């Protein structure tokens, strides 16, 4: 069985107008794009806005994406350009020439001005990472090995099967069960 890059199918569907396929791509890459953007943009709320914009631009430009390059490479370029443009627009703004933060808040439009990087949110991000790592450490060794080889080493199921001397079906099952155990701890954290 060929190990096609998982993106191809989703990208093709998205190019054909399948917005839900694009949504899955966003879920796949949003953290990575946000990390990239945050190197340029300081405020977390702005990082999120710019990240959002990156994906919207990517969606609109999808027809022009040439399949000879990797999707993420293409997305990466869009992210860099978008973040840079944002910075340039920001830096050109003379101080005090905005309509005014006060005005927006007076009119009850203060939502956007609120700082999203509250201590609670930072704690939550940290808690997500801690929870996942703790759950990983608590896994039986065969599950932990399987998922580590997959996610950290990027090995295919076939390669893992060889490394662990077991059938591919067992690899598939172990990786899945590892994820299930971790997700049991993760899911409650993300409930609204």
């Amino acid at each position, binding site marked *: 069985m060929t190990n096609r890059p998982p993106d191809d199918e989703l990208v093709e569907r998205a190019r054909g107008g399948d917005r839900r396929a694009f949504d899955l791509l966003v879920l796949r890459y949003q953290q990575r794009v946000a990390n990239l953007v945050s190197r340029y943009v300081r405020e977390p709320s702005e990082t999120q806005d710019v990240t959002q914009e990156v994906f919207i631009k990517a969606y609109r430009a999808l027809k022009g994406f040439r399949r000879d390059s990797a999707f993420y490479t293409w997305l990466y370029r869009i992210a860099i350009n978008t973040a840079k443009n944002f910075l340039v627009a920001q830096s*050109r703004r*003379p101080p005090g020439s*905005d*309509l005014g933060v006060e005005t927006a808040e007076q009119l009850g439009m203060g939502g956007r001005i609120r700082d999203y990087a509250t201590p609670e949110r930072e704690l939550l991000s940290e808690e997500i990472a801690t929870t996942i790592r703790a759950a990983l450490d608590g896994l039986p060794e065969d599950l932990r090995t399987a998922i580590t080889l997959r996610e950290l080493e990027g090995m295919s199921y076939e390669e893992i099967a060889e490394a662990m001397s077991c059938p591919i079906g067992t690899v598939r099952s172990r990786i899945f069960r590892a994820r299930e155990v971790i997700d049991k701890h993760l899911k409650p954290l993300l409930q609204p």
Partner: protein
Amino acid sequence: MPRLPAMTRGVEALPPAALMVMLLLAPQTGAGASANAEVKAALARMTQALHSLSYTGTFVYLHGDRLDTLRFSHTVHDGQELERLVSLNGVAREVHRDPTTVVCVMPDAKAVLVEKRIPATQLWPSLDVARLGQFYRLHTLGDSRVAGRVAQVVGIIPRDALRYGYRFYLDRETGLPLKTDLMNEEANPIEQIMFTSLGLHADVSGPEEDEGVPNGYRTVTQNAPQSDQKGVASQWVFRNLPVGFALHGHHHWADATGAQVEQLVLTDGLASVSVYVERSGSEGLQGAAHIGAVNAWGGRVADHQVTAVGEVPHGTVRQVAEALSPRPAGGDRND
């Protein structure tokens, strides 16, 4: 001491309290010359805001039982205006405009139409409010709230069924029209544009990177019209135009075969109709057509194809087109 507006001059002798009440009332009822001045000031401010601010927004366009969504951005860089409009539902048509060019992208026809232009503000620096008053009732209609913001409402309501009017809801802070109604003579809105999101750019670094024209699209370029031939009368005159409409100017293009197309523009100061006159071999509209509130009427006059287009009621474009006739030899002036 500032002079009082003309309307209240005659009441300077009244007790101050009564005078105060009148001054407070006057902007609300909007009667007379001071209302015209207020409307003029408000519209001037709106035009100024539309052309000098940089902003992006999404607006909904309500007409009939349809709702279309469009995204619009206007940026000013180095004193030059760049505008972009794209349809967000249905076919993604786009219009781009800069001071010299209009580009219309039509994916359904896989074509791009490029036209050289004269910027509209150069042609129409401001509304002639006094002239308008003959054909429209001009009001300020107090303040209203639109999308959580305070808006000044300004109405230009037609006095007859020959033209449409407008009702503008102008953001008090910026002057931008948050909502615009197209009005008939019964002061009923027949179409509406309303911004559902609108944001300002404090400063703009420069024109965005332009990705260019899509693969495989044809481009059709139309050069700027030859200069308005002032002093050279058109070979056409208009008889029996709808009340208030008069010739504003005329222009020529040469088509690919060298034949002339003449455009004559008529206006009542707000509404306008363009009449395009082509030689008789040309394909053209016969009878009526419309797209929303924009009407067109076509037919043959003296062996020419004549098409009238304008954001006016159906009867008006027809009357304008049918008013066209060749200038009689012997110098009957058209003015």
